[in-house]
């Protein structure tokens, strides 16, 4: 495990040196924390909100319901965040090694493939999960402070919490695995990020489904969703590992 930590340390040193990457990592969560505050501050008459039927918000007053809709909409962005942030880091981490030609000297060391892959995945995953959880917690605190008493419990439901705590690391792992696969085919970070955007489409579908009242994110649905994510994450990680072999990287990666 020592080498995984050595790789992680190196990756974090490099991440901290890249201002653009830091903006990409910290700006979205910051915006997702600040924008709902502004919208809540501006308030609204609830006309638009009342036209949206979100099952988990039933029983709230119109004012609470308006706040609840804003909260529910933004709460789901934190699920998406877990896919966006690691994709950004992984794009720089893996494609950066390719474009700087640092992969060959690294692969020439007696590092094992799993150590290198684990180091790379964790370097993208750990900050992402941390950023997602911290910014999500700030968001919950904001709801608690700036909305009416009943709203928090209707937005931060048990189902959402299960997805937020268990699902986000899994979604992050899937995003990193997809980025690793994309890395084998492209040579610049922008293309990789553009392609990886498609990975969030299924998650957006689920969010829209909830917001349009098609289903409620109950504990059951959240657990089922997490249970589906586990084999998907394992399969995607296995696929990434298949592409992340010395031979493949040196002879077939473009």
């Amino acid at each position, binding site marked *: 495990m020592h080498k995984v930590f050595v790789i992680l340390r190196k990756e974090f040193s490099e991440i901290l040196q890249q201002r653009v990457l830091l903006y990409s990592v910290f700006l979205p969560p910051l915006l997702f924390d600040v924008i709902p505050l502004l919208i809540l501050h501006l308030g609204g008459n609830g006309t638009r909100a009342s036209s949206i039927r979100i099952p988990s918000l039933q029983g709230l007053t119109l004012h609470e319901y308006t706040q609840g809709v804003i909260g529910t909409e933004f709460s789901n962005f934190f699920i998406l965040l877990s896919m966006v942030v690691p994709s950004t880091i992984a794009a720089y981490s893996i494609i950066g090694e390719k474009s700087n030609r640092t992969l060959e000297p690294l692969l020439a060391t*007696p590092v094992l493939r799993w150590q290198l892959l684990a180091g790379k995945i964790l370097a993208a995953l750990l900050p992402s999960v941390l950023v997602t959880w911290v910014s999500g917690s700030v968001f919950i605190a904001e709801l608690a402070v700036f909305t009416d008493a009943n709203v928090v419990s209707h937005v931060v439901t048990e189902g959402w919490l299960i997805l937020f705590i268990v699902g986000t690391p899994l979604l992050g792992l899937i995003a990193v695995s997809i980025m690793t696969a994309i890395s084998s085919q492209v040579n610049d970070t922008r293309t990789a990020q553009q392609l990886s955007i498609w990975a969030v489409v299924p998650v957006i579908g689920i969010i829209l489904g909830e917001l349009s009242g098609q289903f409620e994110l109950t504990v059951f649905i959240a657990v089922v969703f997490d249970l589906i994510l586990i084999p998907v994450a394992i399969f995607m990680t296995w696929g990434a590992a298949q592409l992340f072999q*010395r031979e493949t990287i040196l002879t077939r990666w473009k």
Partner: protein
Amino acid sequence: MNSIETNHLTRSFGKLVAVDDLTLAIPEGTVFGFLGPNGAGKTTTVRMLSALIAPTSGNAVIMGHQLGENNEAIRQSVGILTETPGLYERLSAWDNLMFFGEMYNLSREKSSTQVERYLRLLDLWDRRGDKVGSFSKGMRQKLAIARALLHEPKMIFLDEPTSGLDPEAAKVVRDFIKVLRSEGRTIFLTTHNLPEADELCDLIGVFRSRLLRLDTPANLRVSVFGSGTQVRVVGDAARWVEPVRALAFVQQVTASENILTINLPHPNEQNPEVVRKLVAAGADICAVEPSSHSLEDVYMELVENEHETAAIG
């Protein structure tokens, strides 16, 4: 003991055979020059021998470890300077080397000692805290060489170590290779710089997908051009080709301006008779000296012959 032994080592990419039936043995402490044109399969060979890619067939033993059976041990026992330095540009020289030291299983303390040693040895100590992105090409190359040596490997692969360097930086690198040779390390040097190979190498392999010739530089000259004598005469040397050719032991005679180049099996014994013959024929001789062919002549001869053979085939 041999540092490298390969036995019919072959590597194909689809229908393309990049390395074909390579069999060679490189004794410990040898500087081996691996020469060949671009695309000849040199880098593929280095990658196979440093356990980065697997051969399609054949086998090899590197530093006592069988290729494919204990690749981690091979990677631990060799150092490699890749074609491009491949350094982390946003990290300092110190951080770059510390990272690789630990990747080569050195403890943090040992790594720190080794990094200091090589940064001082390669005159980079004062720039240890600077980001590598600010380094010149020569400094990067020196840093990459330091990286290859941190774990004190007895076998080092140097892929084009002086390529693109200014003459001063190239000399520093060449002098450092001589230091490594004096320490008894085995060096596998791929280069296009033939005078450099001539200066540094004990053994030369000329390669173009397959090994065309393997010998010492001196023996290569003899085997390709024969041992011979150059005679400088007054006037056009072509006049004296026929009288010299009449001598039974002469293998080949060529004339260029005022110089006769004569291939002889035993120049020391046969030179006096050649001189007598020329004088008797009326030639005015200015000088007699051993014929000298550069390694470049040898290389061009071998590679061009191979090209012609391949074209005929």
